[in-house]
């Protein structure tokens, strides 16, 4: 019962948040709707017995990436918008115009059509099983991370170090 309530709340947050990220006109509002959408995704992870991934989602995404996006939006705001590019053509506005949204919905419709055409053939293979889940996942994930998946674990540490140094290196202002 509680599981169903949590699923309904988080799926509403995911649907509303993702559609409003796609359709709103303000970049800051878009960041806030992305925050709601990521909260909903964390709730969906909780309904799927993935407590450790839900906590990581909350900490990394909702606590880190959305704040980073908001700060980057504030640091890059107030730009002088020129209406023409360097070839003299009229530029598309920053958050998309009607034509770009029409193109986007056409591509989404094509994606829906192709996906359903492909998936209708293998509908028998997609029947959901009611698998037995282990009740606690943190111990098993920690054990797997240092035995089976130790190489991508170490590589991700190198990736994070490189991304940190690279981000600080790129964003540093070079004066003189």
């Amino acid at each position: 019962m509680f599981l169903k309530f949590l699923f309904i709340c988080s799926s509403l947050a995911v649907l509303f948040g993702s559609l409003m990220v796609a359709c709103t006109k303000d970049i800051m509002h878009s960041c806030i709707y992305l925050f709601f959408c990521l909260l909903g995704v964390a709730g969906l992870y909780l309904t799927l017995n993935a407590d450790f991934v839900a906590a990581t989602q909350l900490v990394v995404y909702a606590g880190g990436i959305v704040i980073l996006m908001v700060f980057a939006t504030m640091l890059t705001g107030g730009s002088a918008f020129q209406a023409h590019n360097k070839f003299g053509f009229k530029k598309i506005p920053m958050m998309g115009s009607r034509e770009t949204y029409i193109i986007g919905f056409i591509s989404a419709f094509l994606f829906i059509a192709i996906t359903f055409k492909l998936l209708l053939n293998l509908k028998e293979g997609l029947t959901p099983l009611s698998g037995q889940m282990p009740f606690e996942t943190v111990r098993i994930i920690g054990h797997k991370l240092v035995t089976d998946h130790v190489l991508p674990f170490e590589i991700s540490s190198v990736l994070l170090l490189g991304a940190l140094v690279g981000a600080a290196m790129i964003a540093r202002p070079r004066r003189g």
Partner: protein
Amino acid sequence: MINLYSYLGLSFVMFLSGIIVLVARKNIIAMLLGIELVLNAAGINFIAYTRFSNANLDGHIFTLFIIVVAAAEAAVGLAIAIRFFQIKETIHIDDAVTLQG
């Protein structure tokens, strides 16, 4: 009744929203928001298949690596966006024509 298809439908809507953002927007930061939506849709699929199909938790580890890569990508992408704003005074994607010659 909550089954696998409800989770797959949710992640499908999320992926489509990300694709529409990537196609329609011309702001670099808004396009990064679209990339986050697409990566989260992939994560929902991994966790849902782990719950309903096999229970050996490899999908959870894949989702953790997706989160790690998304964090690194957001940091580097926003650094590039801020640097681009310092040089060009705009973050419109059509102004990034320096490498076109």
